[in-house]
């Protein structure tokens, strides 16, 4: 379908006659019909959630067709896709004598491809999803004390430091990508074309989650600045107090606080301040469930503060950016429709009491972890910022607070200095926050040298100290054999000397280390089961059968109803949280997967002879609460006749290869609902059943939408 369309399109914008328009209408109808058929067939076969093979319901196109229409081969080449679309859409414009149908087809193809691209991401093997920080090129230049650098240089610097330059873009490009070129053009001068780097940072480096922290780390790494010394000071006039009421123990027992004094925000730093809170909420705070941050204009408030938990109806205040007061009950209702906030509602919804923070006059600062009060909201002009973070995990709350104040205390009139706040717990315990603790770790120099494979002369103590300092880990030699490393409050990721070792290796440069092979001598050895499996695979393929590889997960229906077996008779492992119905259970038989493969390849020349040797999973029968894999071999013959003799012959051949003498195995007639009555046998090895063989029951075939007879065997290899 697609191919002929492109050929027509590529002919250009010639005016075409009536006959052609009619042909096109047929073409369009045919493709819609084809799409419908495909969908039906995939749903009737139980389908899977395959999106690209299945035509989209809107466009009636499969991905392949869409790519053919736009004449693109590579989905990654986004500029070519856009170019082809613009060109083809243009030349088929009616005003230029083109055809609306073709234009529509081109449009639908682009739509289909966009749908696919939206789903694509990177290889998932090991890697975590890493948070992304945006930094303007100008800001980066300034902090690295450079007039200019190329994108490659930035990429190189990031690589060395363990960051990843994800994208080079601008405000305009980002908006264009999100909302289309037209919208971006419409915004005109309101958008900046200044280059922005999107940089991925490691998931445990919360200190790099904002421009401030990232640029400072890079400055220190490049020896352009010394690591700052962060201080928490207690004002002479006494600290602000936060009293914790016992009621909070029921819902969110911890709170930590700090004050940033005489701060000057710029529009950029203000935005960054809000962004960092958001990023912390998404990462270490686990969507605010562990920690929730609230920041307030202190000049609108009066201490001391009270953190308590009240019944929802007793909490009434004007929430951020609303014009009137709501009760907590009303708020939960209000926000249930709000995409940004509704995700946080379940954290407290079912609790009899909700947490709330108030000042001395009863003004509500926030109802964590949902929303702050409007009264104390911070603005560009806020000078004194009061920060509170409520939590279910005290340690994480302290880490979050340290991270936030370390990054933004640089904008205070007294840089890197934070005013402490005292938190008073109901048991009489008083804690002072932020902790901003510096931790000393003594590390053997030998450990570090061995770790990077360098000798005394190749790596002096001085060099170790210098390099560690570049990673913000200030180090001093305490003897010939040890260094004392100071872990700053920005580096909560350092748990063990091995973390220091990694930073040393980064500072030296991974790619500057001398590679060597481990001296370990061992002999290679296979798992006996796997080497047997490989032998069998070859033998079955030599016998003319083709190997499939199907999913280990499937629907309940696949292993029960479709094989005509009652579900409760199967020792199936069930999945609690599948994203689709296709992954309800782990398979207990290879048969459904092979039969689905037959179904989707039934247009190929007959007969189809398929096999698979893979693991199935059974729930264990004892009380251990575990499950076991079992290696199974299954083969299916599908053709004009049942082909039982062929399947039987294959079974004989396998027994021969396995060295089982003819007198040690036999078939004995039995009834299994999957197979046709009187056409099914147990395979007995030394008298005990190891598999079944037979002609598939016509209703089994019908379950898989197959119209020709088939024979199969399923056989336990172990």
């Amino acid at each position, binding site marked *: 379908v697609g191919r002929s369309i492109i050929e027509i399109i590529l002919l250009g914008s010639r005016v075409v006659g009536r006959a052609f328009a009619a042909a096109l209408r047929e073409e369009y109808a045919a493709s819609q019909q084809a799409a419908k058929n495909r969908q039906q067939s995939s749903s009737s076969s139980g389908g899977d959630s395959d999106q690209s093979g299945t035509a989209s319901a809107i466009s009636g196109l499969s991905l392949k067709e869409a790519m053919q229409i736009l004449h693109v081969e590579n989905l990654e080449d986004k500029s070519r896709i856009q170019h082809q679309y613009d060109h083809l859409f243009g030349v088929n414009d009616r005003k230029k004598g083109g055809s609306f149908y073709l234009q529509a087809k081109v449009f639908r193809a682009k739509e289909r491809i966009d749908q696919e691209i939206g789903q694509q991401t990177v*290889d998932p093997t090991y890697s975590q999803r890493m948070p992304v920080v945006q930094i303007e090129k100008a800001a980066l230049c300034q902090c690295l004390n450079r007039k200019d650098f190329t994108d490659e240089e930035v990429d190189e610097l990031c690589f060395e430091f363990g960051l990843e330059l994800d994208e080079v873009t601008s405000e305009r490009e980002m908006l264009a990508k999100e909302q289309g070129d037209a919208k971006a053009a419409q915004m005109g001068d309101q958008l900046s074309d200044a280059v922005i780097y999107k940089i991925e940072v490691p998931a445990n480096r919360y200190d790099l989650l904002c421009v401030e922290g990232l640029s400072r780390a890079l400055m220190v790494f490049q020896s352009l600045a010394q690591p700052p010394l962060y201080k928490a000071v207690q004002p002479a006039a006494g600290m602000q107090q936060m009293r914790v009421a016992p009621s909070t123990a029921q819902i969110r027992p911890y709170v930590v606080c700090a004050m940033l004094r005489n701060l000057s925000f710029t529009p950029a730093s203000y935005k960054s301040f809000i962004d960092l809170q958001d990023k912390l909420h998404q990462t270490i705070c686990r969507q605010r469930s562990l920690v929730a941050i609230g920041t307030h204009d202190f000049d609108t408030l009066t201490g001391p503060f009270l953190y308590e938990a009240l019944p929802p109806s007793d909490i009434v205040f004007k929430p951020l950016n609303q014009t009137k007061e709501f009760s907590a009950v009303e708020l939960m209702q209000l926000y249930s429709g709000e995409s940004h906030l509704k995700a946080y509602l379940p954290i407290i919804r079912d609790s009899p009491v909700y947490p709330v923070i108030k000042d001395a006059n009863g003004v509500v600062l926030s109802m964590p972890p949902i929303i702050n009060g409007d009264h104390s909201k911070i603005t560009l002009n806020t000078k004194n910022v009061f920060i509170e973070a409520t939590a279910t995990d005290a340690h994480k709350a302290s880490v979050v607070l340290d991270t936030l104040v370390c990054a933004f205390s640089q904008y205070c009139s007294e840089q890197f200095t934070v005013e402490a706040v005292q938190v008073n717990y109901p048991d009489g315990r008083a804690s002072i926050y932020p902790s901003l603790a510096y931790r000393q770790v003594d590390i053997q120099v030998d450990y570090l040298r061995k770790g990077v494979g360098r000798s005394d002369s190749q790596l002096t103590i001085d060099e170790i100290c210098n390099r560690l300092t570049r990673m913000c880990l200030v180090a001093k030699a305490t003897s010939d054999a040890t260094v004392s490393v100071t872990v700053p409050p920005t580096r909560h990721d350092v748990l063990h000397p091995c973390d220091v070792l990694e930073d040393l290796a980064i500072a030296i440069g991974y790619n500057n280390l001398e590679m060597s092979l481990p001296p370990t001598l061992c002999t290679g050895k296979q798992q006996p089961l796997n080497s047997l499996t490989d032998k069998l695979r070859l033998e079955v393929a030599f016998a003319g059968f083709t190997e499939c590889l199907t999913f280990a997960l499937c629907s309940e229906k696949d292993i029960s109803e479709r094989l005509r077996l009652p579900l409760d008779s199967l020792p199936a492992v069930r999945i609690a949280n599948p994203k689709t119905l296709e992954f309800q259970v782990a398979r207990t038989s290879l048969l459904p997967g092979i039969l689905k493969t037959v179904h989707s390849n039934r247009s190929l020349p007959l007969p189809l002879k398929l096999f698979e040797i893979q693991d199935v999973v059974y729930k264990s029968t004892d009380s251990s609460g575990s499950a076991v894999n079992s290696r199974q071999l299954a083969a299916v013959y599908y053709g004009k006749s049942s082909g039982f003799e062929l399947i039987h012959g294959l079974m004989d051949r396998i027994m021969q290869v396995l060295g089982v003498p003819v007198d040690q195995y036999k078939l004995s007639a039995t009834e299994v609902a999957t197979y046709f009555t009187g056409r099914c046998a147990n395979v007995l090895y030394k008298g005990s059943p190891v598999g079944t063989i037979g002609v598939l029951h016509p209703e089994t075939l019908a379950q898989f939408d197959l119209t020709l007879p088939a024979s199969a065997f399923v056989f336990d290899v172990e």
Partner: protein
Amino acid sequence: MEDLRSNILAYIHKHETCSSTELCKEMNVEHQKIVGALNSILAFGEIISAQPEVTSRLELTDEGRQVADHGSHEAVLFASVPAGDGAPQSELMKSVPNAKIGFSKALANRWIRLDKSAPGGPRVYRQVESVSDRIRHCLQMVAALSLDSLTAEERAELKKRKLVQEGRVTVYRVAKGPAFTLTLAKEETELTAEMLATGVWQTLTFKAYNFKALGQQPDCGHLHPLLKVRAEFRQIFLEMGFQEMPTNRYVESSFWNFDALFQPQQHPARDAHDTFFLTEPAACRLDAEQADGYLARVKAVHSNGGYGSIGYNYDWKESEAQKNILRTHTTAVSARMLYQLAQQPQFQPTKYFSIDRVFRNESLDATHLAEFHQIEGLVADYNLNLCHLMGIIREFFHKLGIRRLRFKPAYNPYTEPSMEIFSYHEGLGKWVEIGNSGVFRPEMLLPMGLPESVSVIAWGLSLERPTMIKYGINNIRDLIGPKVDLKMICDS
């Protein structure tokens, strides 16, 4: 056919040269049949020569051909009207093909008449005794390509009735060829057992083979491409002296999949969004791990640290560790193997590998599946470091033919230092990530009871990615699962 061929040869023998239309008239057969016969003579070799000349001619349409064979619609209708009594119009309309046209033409020709007031509805009677079917005759002439006798009006009428159309006809100029003969010897296509037995093969001529044609596909089985690549990787590991780990265990406890690897219990990877949890069996017992105090040591290192670490400072729960999942990496098995290694009285340096399925709770798309294969290699020995890790990774990828490698600092919860492996992709002209690696954290190894000076270096990659690159597959669902393209398996 044979008669026609010998007649043609005889005619050419007599006249030396002629055109295919001439043969048409002479033999009184359709032009197409003449062309067919000429082609079959040509297939015997240079017996005759035939030069094609394209001319524009009238030719019959499908309807025209039908009329030429069975008579014009009006004649057919006339024939269906019984002489004398006639027939009801409605019946004729139903039973005679193309009755509508036939009726109006026959009426116009005054071959029939219509009595509208006959009892039982309008009735049709013959108006003449017999008719001569001029239209049919004309069409037969067109078919025989003798157009000279057709008048201009007749041509116009035939065209108007869409019985003929202007078409391009290829007429052949036929002449004797260098090997002209009057008798066509039949050429044999196959050497048969009978020919050998009787010795008749010596006197027969055999038809030349067309060596440009494709042979018949052999009927054979095939192995799956992904598993073929798996075999290659296994081979490399075995060559390098690695021992295979028993990975046939899809259902794993959170303990071995996460906790034993020092992955904290609030880690996002342990979220339901990323990991398949089970309802049956929902949780397992960790009796063996508990019995020798390993469980307690893991709990301690998570919550308070130890072994030189400050730990994660949180409340570690055994119930969380008991939750069954579908393993998210084969490293769960590596942890079990390292634990077993630590239980031996004397530590033995070891190299382990595995290639097996792992599960992630992903939505399916062109590059993601909920299950894929992880390749993993690890070496446990005294004093191993980053240099050894990079060295063995280089060796491993050299064996795959990948030479340009570089390493990027990265973060994994259970390795420190950690490195992502990049290789330079010549086709894309850039560095692409091909795997992940690191030195297992002491917080993972020491609670198992491994000696402090033992390090374990490890690396991993997916099996699907190199396979997709090798076989040029863009959509992972073409490779694995029921939608797999068997033709692809056979062709690769």
